[in-house]
């Protein structure tokens, strides 16, 4: 529908919308995050939900402790190799549609602890990430920004057509391979179906 026409109509008290818009509007304002803190960034995540920053303004104050009831996983902190299988498993247990915010340098790439022998160098090696926020730790404002970016992403989704999101495509997986704890590290070291290896992306 033409945006100008819609604005014009609304001036006359006529509210026109599409089912898609209504649906996305509802979804984007009721994203329930998983109560899931990994490290220092989790404290900033808690601070974001508290009185001063008040994430509730965006419809996301309902933190659920069970992955079955959550839509959004905020990977807030360092993912170690020992923890990585659990993170992937939790992601797999969440129902579609589900989103991931990778909060902080650690969740993106290993951050300051990148050189550690037990540190996973970015959670996007195993699960698809929707929004990355850099920072160590990102400020609560940054988390809110990431959250709004996710809301924009949701409201721009089309329910039909080729560009429809993953959860509406029946043949795309909603669960991903859980890595195994091996003798020296994780096996496999990344899930090639998910991980966009920057080197390979650069080389086309």
């Amino acid at each position: 529908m033409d945006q100008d026409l819609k604005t014009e109509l609304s001036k006359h008290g006529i509210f026109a919308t599409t089912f898609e818009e209504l649906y996305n509007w509802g979804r984007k304002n009721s994203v329930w995050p998983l109560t899931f803190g990994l490290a220092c960034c989790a404290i900033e995540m808690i601070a974001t939900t508290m009185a001063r920053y008040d994430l509730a303004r965006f419809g996301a104050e309902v933190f659920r402790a069970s992955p079955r009831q959550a839509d959004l996983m905020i990977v807030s902190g360092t993912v170690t190799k020992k923890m990585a299988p659990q993170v992937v498993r939790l992601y797999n247990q969440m129902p579609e549609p589900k989103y991931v915010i990778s909060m902080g340098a650690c969740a993106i790439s290993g951050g300051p602890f990148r050189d550690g022998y037990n540190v996973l160098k970015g959670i996007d090696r195993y699960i698809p990430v929707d929004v990355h926020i850099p920072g160590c730790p990102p400020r609560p404002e940054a988390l809110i920004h990431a959250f709004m970016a996710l809301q924009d992403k949701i409201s721009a989704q089309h329910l039909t057509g080729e560009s429809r999101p993953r959860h509406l495509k029946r043949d795309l997986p909603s669960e991903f391979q859980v890595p195994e704890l091996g003798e020296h590290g994780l096996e496999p070291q990344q899930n090639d179906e998910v991980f966009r290896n920057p080197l390979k992306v650069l080389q086309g």
Partner: protein
Amino acid sequence: MTLEEIRSRLEAFVPGCHAEIVVNGSPSAQNSLLIDRQHGLQAAMYLRDHPELQLDFCSNVTAVDWPDREKAEKIKTKRIVDGVEKEVEETKKTTIPGYLEVVYHLFSIAKKEGPVVLRMHTANRTDEVTLQSLTPVWRSAEFQEREAFDLFGIVFEGHPDLRRILMWEGFTDHPMRKDYVPPPDDDLEILAVSEPGA
């Protein structure tokens, strides 16, 4: 009590115990006592229960890895070169065998004194890595000795529950050792070097 007094008492009252003072050259001047491998437990009991010491609080337990070191020494020898006796310098290399070391920092809550630093060495870094556990004396050593077992590979005899603590069961390396190499291909920078055309 000074460290020297503690040392002589230990040797006197714990039969067969051999203790040695390790001098610390830093401004902190925290010297330590090196106890022989067989009498660690008895010496610890003695230190804890002695009424003048009452080292009832074992604060810090940790391990240190000392790999094999090569020491180069220059030695002057006399040798006959071209029929003339000359003084020749030669470098002689000796390998100092490596060992693993545990360090205990003891304090006394009753007397508000400390630290008394205990050390023990394993025989080598490979197959004889057993030491006596001091967990029966101080519970606070329980998790810290497990950590030393996990990350350094020191086996504590008499520990009630010696399992890996930080890494997972099934992990085979001891990552805090100096010669530990993390698995390759883990980092993209390394990937770039190893497969240039990928």
